[in-house]
């Protein structure tokens, strides 16, 4: 039964655009899906390696800006009168470059910041995100600053023999996002259940012991950071091409907090956790908007976050697993579902 759960969930979600006609709710599904991808990528760092990166929104935003700029083109003058002119490229190329550039940033940030741990790591990552936000705000020639990048084209796929297909409608975007969620789920699932994943969990549980048995801690942490940043970049790219407009607010700390709440609520270190947490927090605003202003919603979020840490520190998914008797012994490394183990 448990083995089929992801497939049932996927099918159930795939049927949504067939019966849901309300564009507002469909929009909520799409943006929630995008944030679920981002939360899943954060979970790889937070849940499996135990590193709380509070600058994760930087990779999301870098992905969004990279993808938008590649497909819109730009013309900037660098220091020393050196001019860089870029003609617009196909959007799908932007999507892949977003993953690449974000992953590269993840590599650099990981290499530099994994020299420190705990509170220091958290603060370095936040600082990085804030610096990137200030650059996006002030480098007006490239990013238009607070005026935002507008008219970002939708993602277009050229299929041989079938012509072009662009993801313009909400329905098509829904399936695109669902596809990326499923793909991320598989990639992260494969990774954490491999030798690499076991090394990550080992260093989360006891770093000095992991070092003593010969695990190259920094290498695995940087690897996790690269994959995590790349997936976050993909989410950012989807976000930019779906909304068709992005401004430096995409780097706000509150977005990182949203991702963290999703992961913690769902259950860090579980594959399904970010999806469950993401769906809950994606749809709270839909329910709450009828009676609460945005500030009041955020106040509720804050209290909810405190409450979750107090009463359900492991999150919802592990609590449910425990409830249904899927005990510790049946869970794979890092608390993932056993079904991923059986497929190997």
């Amino acid at each position, binding site marked *: 039964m448990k083995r089929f759960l992801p497939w049932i969930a996927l099918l159930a979600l795939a049927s949504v655009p067939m019966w849901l006609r309300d564009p507002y709710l469909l929009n909520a599904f799409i943006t929630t899906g995008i944030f679920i991808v981002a939360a899943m990528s954060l979970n790889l760092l937070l849940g499996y390696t135990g590193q709380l990166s509070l600058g994760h929104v930087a990779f999301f935003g870098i992905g969004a800006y990279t993808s938008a700029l590649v497909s819109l083109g730009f013309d900037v003058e660098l220091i020393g009168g050196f001019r860089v002119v870029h003609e617009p490229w196909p959007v799908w190329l932007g999507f892949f470059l977003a993953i690449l550039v974000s992953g590269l940033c993840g590599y650099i940030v990981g290499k530099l910041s994994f020299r420190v741990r*705990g509170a220091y790591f958290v603060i370095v990552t936040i600082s990085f995100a804030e610096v990137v936000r200030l650059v996006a705000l002030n480098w007006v020639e490239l990013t238009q600053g607070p005026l935002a990048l507008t008219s970002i084209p939708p993602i277009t796929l050229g299929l041989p023999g079938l012509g072009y297909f662009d993801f313009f409608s909400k329905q098509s975007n829904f399936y695109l996002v669902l596809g990326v969620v499923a793909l991320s789920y598989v990639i992260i699932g494969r990774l954490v259940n491999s030798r690499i994943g076991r090394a990550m969990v080992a260093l989360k549980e006891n770093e000095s012991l992991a070092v003593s048995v010969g695990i190259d801690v920094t290498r695995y942490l940087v690897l996790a950071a690269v994959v995590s940043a790349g997936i976050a970049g993909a989410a950012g790219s989807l976000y930019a091409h779906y909304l068709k407009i992005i401004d430096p607010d995409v780097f706000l700390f509150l977005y990182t907090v949203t991702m963290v709440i999703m992961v913690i609520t769902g259950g860090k270190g579980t594959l399904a956790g970010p999806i469950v947490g993401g769906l809950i927090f994606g749809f709270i605003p839909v329910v709450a908007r009828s009676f609460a202003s945005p500030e009041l919603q955020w106040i509720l979020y804050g*209290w909810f976050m405190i409450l979750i840490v107090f009463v359900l520190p492991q999150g919802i998914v592990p609590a449910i697993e425990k409830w249904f008797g899927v005990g510790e012994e049946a869970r794979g490394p890092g608390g993932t579902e056993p079904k991923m183990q059986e497929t190997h």
Partner: protein
Amino acid sequence: MTEFFQHMINMLILGSTYALLGIGLTLIFGIMRIVNFAHGELYAFGAYFVYFVAVLLGFNFFLSLLIAILAGCILGALIEVVLLRPMRGADIDTTMLIMIGAMIVMQNTEQYVWGGVAKSVSTPFPETPLVIGAFSVSWLRLFVFFAALALIAAAYFLINRTKLGRAMRATFQDRDTAALMGVNIQAIYMATFSIGSSLAAAAGALLGPVYVVSPQMGNIASLKAFAIVILGGLGSIGGATIGGFILAFAEEMGAGYISSGYRDAMGFLLIIAVLLFKPTGLFARSERIG
């Protein structure tokens, strides 16, 4: 050259309030091992409280400052008892998440109660600045500088010369041994958090009238306080004081000679640089990182 000296004067005034902010955070961080994301919100709380008492209730400006500092002290104690005491012994990430939750609640409560429009606080100081030769400084800023210095001195006295301060230092060095020697750890934690909070509120109360009071002011203040603490080294009060002035210096130089848009980036670049090249901070004794 006059421009440079004008920047230096601004640096001293800004630095003195940053030092207050940093001392408060370094106490909480050093003694309680709590990454206090709500620190900046206590700063904003202090500023709003002065606005509330001085402008809306019409109290004397100086009395309002005192009331705001006291209110910060009480709010800090309340946060400690309600949110942190039940979580004693939890790891650093868990309390960090709780403080992020508290930060979100406080910031949005400010936005909800006071609205998004920035408020300004009028003061009894004359509008015309004090002019000495080619330099000018407003009376309000001069007052802020000396008030902040007085508060820093008070914090030093409290930590180094009183019984409470000695117990706090003992707890910082070794919590368990301090407890064995009869130090009431619960009381020390509450005192630490409420002193740290009142220093943040004092910084906000002093800077609020200089700039404007807005719900977003706490956001950046938290991060700046972290920058100061990291610069100075964890738990080092002297380090936090100097760190405050260094950050103010970097910001003034960055805003004055690079671009005013990157003023706030200076602090973050400093954090990144310090953590990469000298992760123990500039002035700390050897300290384990992470």
